[in-house]
């Protein structure tokens, strides 16, 4: 993982995305950004604020409200040599673009036997804990991670955001880049200056430990780390792996850690059934079953359509460092 250097600055995740996009626009004429309210407004989180002034309306494109074509047009741009970065204003509104992402972008290279490719980045803010109710809170990674031809990045630290967004923009294949809304301003960290790339598909051990492996991504990595602090005071040692990307998934890192700690807890914000945790668990059950001293547990959201707007409903849906600590404690003691 990129670490603080003399030439680094402290940024939150919004600033890290913004700085990386800015550099990409500076460095490569082929890069264009398209999406709803990315131009005049500079994105609803102000990520692209004033870009339109510096780079012009032909590179920072305010699109009509039409997600299928935001992605579809970006696919065409990519097939014809541009490096489009399409934005879906909120992940909750990516569903109309499902056909273009799953049916088209992910299959362009394959169906043309490599004659045409689709170097496309689709950025979108996702996740809850922000009073977003049914349609401004969803996690969408599990609806896409089954799809060969796609890559899916889910960073949680500013330095990872920059390195992985650079990798996504450089990538010759379509990348879905998911940014957790709650981490946008909450999470700050040192971000190295200059251009660097973190390879997509490599997990990162955010904390070493010996008694339990916790695999997570997104906001919950931060909460899991907080939980482990509590457990340390109780003398328990927990390893926390930040997947950073869920397709490809870093099987090696997961298996190595599990073989060391012999216990696996998967933690994610999305609901459990058919979620990312299912594949993680299945991988381990297939390749490291006899290395396990405890059943594989998944600490995830309940199987309901969404978190509600009212605070009690959001709280009941979301986990917390305390709830995570309980789940970890149970596993360590198992």
């Amino acid at each position, binding site marked *: 993982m990129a670490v603080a250097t003399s030439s680094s600055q402290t940024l939150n995740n919004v600033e890290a995305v913004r700085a990386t996009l800015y550099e990409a626009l500076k460095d490569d004429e082929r890069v264009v950004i398209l999406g709803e309210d990315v131009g*005049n407004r500079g994105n609803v989180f102000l990520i692209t604020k004033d870009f339109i002034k510096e780079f012009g309306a032909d590179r920072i494109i*305010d699109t009509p*409200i039409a997600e299928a074509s935001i992605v579809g047009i970006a696919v065409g741009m990519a097939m014809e040599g541009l490096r489009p970065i399409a934005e879906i204003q909120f992940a909750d509104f990516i569903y109309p673009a499902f056909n273009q992402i799953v049916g088209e972008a992910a299959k362009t290279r394959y169906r043309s036997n490599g004659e045409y490719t689709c170097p496309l980045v689709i950025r979108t803010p996702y996740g809850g804990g922000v009073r977003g109710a049914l349609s401004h809170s969803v996690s969408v990674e599990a609806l896409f991670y089954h799809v060969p031809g796609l890559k899916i990045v889910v960073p949680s630290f500013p330095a990872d955001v920059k390195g992985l967004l650079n990798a996504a923009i450089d990538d010759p294949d379509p990348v879905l880049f998911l940014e957790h809304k709650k981490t946008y301003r909450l999470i700050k960290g040192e971000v190295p200056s200059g251009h660097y790339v973190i390879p997509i598909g490599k997990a990162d051990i955010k904390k070493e430990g010996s008694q339990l492996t916790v695999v997570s991504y997104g906001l919950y990595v931060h909460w899991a780390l907080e939980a482990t602090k509590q457990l340390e005071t109780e003398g328990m040692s927990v390893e926390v792996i930040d997947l950073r990307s869920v397709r490809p998934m870093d099987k090696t890192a997961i298996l190595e850690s599990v073989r060391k700690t012999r216990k696996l807890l998967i933690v994610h914000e999305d609901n459990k059934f058919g979620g990312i945790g299912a594949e993680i668990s299945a991988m381990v059950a297939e390749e490291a079953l006899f290395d396990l001293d405890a059943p594989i547990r998944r600490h995830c959201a309940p199987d*309901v359509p969404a978190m*509600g707007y009212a*605070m009690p409903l959001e709280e*009941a849906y979301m986990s917390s460092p305390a709830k995570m600590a309980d789940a970890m404690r149970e596993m360590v003691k198992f």
Partner: protein
Amino acid sequence: MANIPAQMRKPLDRHGLSGDQLKTIFRTMLLQRQLDNRGFQLNRQGKVPFALGSEGHEALQAGAAMAFVRGKDILAPYYRDLGLSLGIGLTPYEIMLSIFARAADHNGGRQFPNHYSSKRAGLMSFSSVLAASIPHAVGAAYAIKYRKESGRAVLVTFGDGTTSEGEWHESMNFAAIHKLPIVFLCENNQWAISTPLSLQMGQPDIYKRADGYGMPGEQFDGFDPLATYAAVARAMERARSGGGPTLLEGVCYRFLAHSTDDNDLTYRTREDIAEHRKDDPVPRFENALIEAGVVTPDEVASLKADVLRETNDATDRAEAMPFPAPEELFTHVYEGPWEPWQ
């Protein structure tokens, strides 16, 4: 300002509406604005995390609501339709329950404010996903036609920006093919958050798309509640009597930021807004009614006091209600009990 003597009155084209109906429209407009402001107040006071206003849509919505037949017609609205929802029978108390996300809210506090639903009022449930409810409205219209329930129609509303969605196109097309009893009402406030109409369409008139589908299209002044009423009433009557769908475009303006999460001065000027304020439909209609002698200034004053009292009362009653219990998270996933995997 004193009452206007008969000989000095400015005539008003009532489109056949009685004085009481005109007053009802006006009252709905006052109530909409009052409740609107209340939402923003409560947000500033930190009592609610989010509010979404509809200032500038009052005339359009109150006028359209007057063309809606309660107990018969169906409304498929969008989140900007506070006044329309009041106009077809939702109470200020129900509005405030939604704003406060209380358990007694129709949606049990699950959805964002302004996402009403009410079987009683014939108001179809909808999500925040733009255009997604438009095919639902078409399906409802199909059900009405299929069951031969003549005298019923569906009114579906959406913003100008929403006409860019594929589902809007597909819905228009299907309704036209089957001559369904439905009216597509576009509330063109000229903005989609920060995106002006000029970046949403290659030509400025939404109603002109009607031809391409084979249905009539009409544009009207959305700042004029009576012009709105006339257009919507005509179209709804056509729909109810087997004449098929209509695309209506009411031109209005969004006076406030998109929502409490938006700062519209990042993309439009104070002057632009001030220019449209001169035309504010609420005072404009107030004066028209007074000048036509439909109401006296005193009546207006008491109406406003009334509306304020009602708003305060609804606010207090709703605020006093409990939030949904955490266990509510697990209900209504499917019919009957559901043991979510955990």
